[in-house]
């Protein structure tokens, strides 16, 4: 059989695409600025040849919503940190400083898109309507994943750095196949009049530290080869626990995309309007079949890596001060006030809503029930497993031996005696 009769792959050409790099740049419309910024730290709105049109679509309600979400998640962050300090949570992973990167990107996603977070994306979770109290189950130690991803298309947190990135690419490859099947079915029954499923994409979050993991590289290779509809959203918050981003990369992380043959954009991660615009563009590109995009949101982890961390050991407060001056909430507040889009009563209401959320989260956390280890036996496998059954049976028998010590569980003593007799 000659080479011409070999099946061609469905997603790429037959060889290296010399034009891919140029195309990736061309799709951005103009030579990319070093960093896309629309809303400056002083609250003034600038312009960008590609992305301003996305900002222009934002109505006042949406802009106020951006602020409300950022304020809400910052208040949540404060409350969760307090809950950890009071011993109610084993650990907390604060997000303060990264509100714009998370709310801006999350709100650019659509319900049919699927999101893979790392473990700090509480703001994205909010935009996906995940119950924030559920989010705390993991940090309370009562669950390894407190919500059902199928309800919100927001995947569980992944703690093994970057391990979720190939999952995202695989999920996107699944979407490609689904859309191809749907197109074939639609062509086959053109008269059925069924509304087509909305096109979907995947967005996966990771940080500057995780960008060094091999899984990010492999994921970008797969995504590029198959032109998978996936947006890689890297929050460069400058610190991987105590190691600065300069140890992970010597060039802007966004530039790495060029090596894989898809567009990479660095955006001011503290500018919610620019993050939203860039992400909306990237998700559109992915949904429309143009393949992956890498977004590097240039931001800063104002707080500690986790509540177990002490940033004073590795960085100066002057650096934190510089970044506090670029605060994502303050600049949007300035803009909303200057444009007459929000007044004192709005900000007062946002504060009150935040306090309500905090009270709700506090109460719900206290009420979270400790699971029974039997659920862990039940969830290790989907199908019946003899070893699990055997160990569970032993555990039941062993536990029954303590029944007389538990006044809530009377009557198990007889069972124990029976087991002992059987054993003899």
């Amino acid at each position, binding site marked *: 059989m000659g080479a011409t009769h070999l099946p061609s792959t469905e997603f790429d050409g037959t060889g290296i695409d010399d034009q891919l790099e140029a195309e990736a740049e061309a799709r951005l419309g103009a030579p990319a600025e070093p960093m896309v910024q629309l809303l400056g730290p002083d609250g003034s709105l600038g312009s960008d040849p590609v992305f301003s049109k996305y900002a222009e679509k934002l109505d006042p309600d949406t802009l106020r919503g951006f602020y409300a979400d950022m304020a809400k998640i910052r208040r949540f962050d404060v409350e969760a940190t307090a809950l950890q300090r009071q011993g109610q949570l084993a650990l907390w992973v604060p997000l303060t400083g990264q509100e714009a990167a998370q709310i801006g990107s999350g709100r650019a996603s659509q319900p049919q898109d699927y999101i893979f977070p790392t473990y700090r994306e509480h703001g994205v979770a909010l935009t996906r309507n995940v119950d924030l109290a559920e989010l705390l189950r993991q940090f309370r130690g009562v669950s390894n994943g407190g919500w059902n991803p199928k309800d919100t298309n927001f995947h569980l947190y992944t703690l093994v750095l970057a391990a979720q990135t190939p999952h995202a690419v695989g999920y996107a490859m699944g979407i490609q196949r689904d859309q191809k099947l749907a197109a074939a079915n639609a062509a086959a029954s053109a008269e059925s009049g069924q509304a087509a499923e909305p096109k979907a994409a995947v967005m996966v979050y990771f940080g500057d530290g995780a960008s060094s993991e091999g*899984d990010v590289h492999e994921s970008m290779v797969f995504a590029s080869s198959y032109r998978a509809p996936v947006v890689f959203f890297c929050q460069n918050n400058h610190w991987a626990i105590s190691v600065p981003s300069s140890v992970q990369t010597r060039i802007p992380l966004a530039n790495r995309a060029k090596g894989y043959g898809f567009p990479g954009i660095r955006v001011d991660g503290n500018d919610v309007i620019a993050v939203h615009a860039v992400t909306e563009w990237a998700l559109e590109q992915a949904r429309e079949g143009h393949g992956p995009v890498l977004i590097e949101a240039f931001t800063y982890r104002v707080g500690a890596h986790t509540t177990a961390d002490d940033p004073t050991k590795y960085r100066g407060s002057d650096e934190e001060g510089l970044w506090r001056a670029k605060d994502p909430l303050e600049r949007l507040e300035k803009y909303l006030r200057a444009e007459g889009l929000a007044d004192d009563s709005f900000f007062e209401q946002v504060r009150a809503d935040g306090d309500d959320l905090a009270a709700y989260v506090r109460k719900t956390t206290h009420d979270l029930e400790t699971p029974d280890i039997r659920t862990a036996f039940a969830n290790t496998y989907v199908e019946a497993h003899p070893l699990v059954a055997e160990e569970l049976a032993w555990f039941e028998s062993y536990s029954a031996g303590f029944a007389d010590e538990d006044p809530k569980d009377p009557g198990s003593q007889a069972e124990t005696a029976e087991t002992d007799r059987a054993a003899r």
Partner: protein
Amino acid sequence: MTTMTIAKAINEGLRATLNNNPRSLLMGEDIGALGGVYRVTDGLVGEFGADRVVDTPLAESGIIGTAIGLSLRGYQPVCEIQFDGFVFPGFNQITTQLAKMHSRSNGNLTVPVVVRIPYGGGIGSIEHHSESPEALFAHTAGLRIITPSNPHDAYWMIQQAVDCQDPVIVFEPKRRYWLKGEVDTDSPGASADPFKAHVLREGTDATVAVYGPLVPVALAAAEAAAEDGHSVEVIDLRSISPIDFDTITASVHKTGRLIVAHEAPTFGGIGGEIAARISERAFHSLEAPVIRVGGFHMPYPVAKVEEDYLPDIDRILEALDRALAY
């Protein structure tokens, strides 16, 4: 009934899967036009297209990781890892992600990914091409591990692995890929449950439990022992996780002696786990300690000396003599 090799049986099993299950797909290195380095996927890309027989970039973590993502979207990927020693770049994805997804999602998510790994030595190959890493995976809760030893099992077990809603690793005995046998493609018959062991030869004096590439070796050893007047029962475990301890226990109740043989090193291996469990379950039936036959505690040796490393008929007979001496 059709006669075919193990490699062909897996090929036919994958073909049946791709035909019967529209959400199934194959992924791996060189599995398309080449049909895999062992030709196990020969011809499939021509029949089912590149969307369902996917030549992947050369990246094992990426293969397992994207398969997990596809399964989250409702697909049932069958991944081929080219050789046993090359699974380790994907080890993180298999053990921290694939094995735990169902548990950590409180049962909300299932990831029915199948990973095929040709394993074992005896083919005179170079480094990293002859290993038996099954114990490393058996130690990880959430995974199931099966290994066929004959074409009929190979045909059905690959399909049963895809049907299973848990992640399944199928270790394929690569030096037996060309072993021929009868396959009933109409019915699995006694092979309906891939997690159940098979008694291949009945005996009364001792039991030899083996799996995968050593099954023919154990059968030959039993034949040789019979000439010396020893009646040896041979069990093909077929499943390494879970292990069918009921079948082994019943056999030991009858024979009183147990030898477990595998190519993998004995230390920390499947044989040790079986020895411990059987000493608990059948202590009063045992006439001798459970004896393990396996590889040594060393990296798999160079091809020219692998005969000294691999358990063979004589090594099993030597263990049998020791067991019978008690």
